[in-house]
């Protein structure tokens, strides 16, 4: 059975002579968190705005659970919840009023428990302009969830948030996923994408240049794991021996740094070498290649893998 919640086929969008999105296709499956990644101006927001029915595509097809966003906007409204990158509410609208008004337009009872979940219970009577950026974002998410949509679209949801607000939002996203809600997350925060998404599409100059899970994408890269070692006597600094599967090593502050294609044997060999030379380990760090590095690799090559 087809589990696609979102289907985009050969989607194109231009602004005058500028091609913002150029013939892209992707699908988002039920219950997954799908990341749309790319640098500023890559076409992420344009793609989302067409999915949300805010803009008209110039070519291709888009469907959300079989609904065409442009042809059936009223059906779309109850299917999706959106946290826009740039959106606002009237300055004088209180938190409670916004929930009541938006719920009423969606034809549902206001879910006041959402305010509690978002930590806005105390702010019910507070006007929008008196909320902090984090509180405004959380309110925006509460409103996006007010009608229990099947698909949530989040455009740069953590931009401008402090660490604890980011963590809260990430927890919320995981909770929604566990309840079977599908999420699309547009971000240029690679750490966030790596942590939160099941699959991603990397957009560059309006084209999709890579798709897959963060793990698949990073595995397709140079595949080098970074190993940083610090020891009491720093014997590795002058080590002429080479360890298995490593590039020539470098030194950064008190660390000797190796890049390995097979980190297990490399780490074992390093530890054996330290033991046989009576040096003791202070710190050992093994870092898998990150999505960010892979992203920079792809975008640095102009989208060529």
């Amino acid at each position, binding site marked *: 059975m087809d589990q696609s919640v979102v289907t985009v086929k050969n989607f194109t969008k231009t602004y005058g002579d500028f091609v913002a999105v150029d013939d892209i296709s992707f699908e988002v499956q039920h219950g997954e968190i799908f990341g749309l990644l790319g640098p500023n101006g890559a076409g992420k927001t344009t793609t989302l705005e067409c999915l949300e029915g805010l*803009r008209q595509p110039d070519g291709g097809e888009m469907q959300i659970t079989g609904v065409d966003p442009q042809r059936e906007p009223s059906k779309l409204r109850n299917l999706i919840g*959106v946290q*826009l990158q740039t*959106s606002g509410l*009237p300055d004088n609208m209180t938190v409670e*009023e916004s929930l009541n*008004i938006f719920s009423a337009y*969606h034809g549902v009872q206001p879910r006041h428990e959402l305010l509690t979940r978002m930590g806005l219970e105390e702010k019910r009577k507070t006007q929008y302009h008196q909320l902090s950026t984090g509180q405004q974002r959380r309110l925006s998410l509460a409103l996006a969830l007010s009608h229990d949509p099947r698909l949530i679209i989040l455009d740069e949801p953590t931009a401008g948030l402090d660490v604890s607000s980011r963590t809260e939002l990430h927890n919320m996203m995981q909770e929604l996923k566990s309840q079977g809600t599908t999420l699309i997350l547009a971000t240029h925060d690679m750490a966030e994408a790596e942590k939160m998404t099941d699959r991603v599409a990397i957009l560059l100059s309006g084209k999709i240049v890579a798709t897959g899970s963060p793990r698949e994408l990073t595995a397709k890269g140079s595949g080098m794991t970074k190993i940083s070692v610090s020891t009491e006597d720093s014997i590795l600094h002058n080590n002429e021996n080479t360890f298995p599967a490593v590039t020539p090593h470098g030194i950064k502050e008190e660390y000797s740094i190796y890049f390995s294609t097979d980190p297990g044997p490399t780490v074992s060999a390093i530890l054996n070498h330290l033991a046989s030379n009576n040096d003791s380990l202070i710190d050992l760090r093994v870092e898998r290649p990150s999505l960010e590095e892979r992203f920079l690799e792809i975008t640095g090559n102009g989208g060529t893998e």
Partner: protein
Amino acid sequence: MSAFTNHFLFEFKTGIRNSSAMLMLYMLPLGFYAAMGFIMVEINPGFKELLIPAMIIFAIMSSMILGFPTGLVEARESGIYRSYKINGIPAVSILIIPALSVGFHGLITSAIIAVTAVPFFDAAEPINWLALVLISLLVVFTFSTLGMLIGVVSSSSRAVVLWSQLIYLPSILVGGMMIPLSLIPEAFQKVSGLLPSTYAMQAYFAYAYQQESIIEPWVSITVLITSGILALALSIFLFNWDSHNDTRRGSPLLGLLILIPYVAAILYSTLS
């Protein structure tokens, strides 16, 4: 509560919570009314005849031509309409509910003026109070839809000021609000035919005060109603969710079609 009630109550409260709205809805018109009542009536006792209708029109113009369109443009530019759209709030609600709310405030100010002008400033009392109320409702309709159209076609707050002042200042100077239309030179009378305040003043004179009016009463009423309907239709047709939207249905210059009933009235009065 229904979506309409929730939304209307919020918009109505905004008129009280927001200091700029409060200024345009109550403080400016009532302050100007008090100044006119104390000073102008002393200088020119004949102004007593004009005080109630002129100050009602002034109050309605201040809130609907100066204040209301600015709010529409600011809401569009700050992305509020985008939020509204993705949450299923239709364009008609976005335009009509704030207009109704501002109109309601305008009627409150008008009522304060109508009730206090006679005892406080010895203003001429309307002969037909019902006509005063009905014409005030019509004037609210005409000016609120005109303000709506200005807000829809203006690309910025600066453009709003330009369009608003093209109506506001001439209305005060040659629209019969400060000086009776009969005392204004004929050339300016023709210009005043382009202003809704002229028809509003003449309608008040004809129906609420049962005096002879320079413009035929049915013409005044027809122009006010036609202008209101046309402005409403054009506003809904030209409404844009945001300034970057590429799906706009027509050029903002189509807004100039609002001049049709006024030009037709001038032609009618010239030819008849």
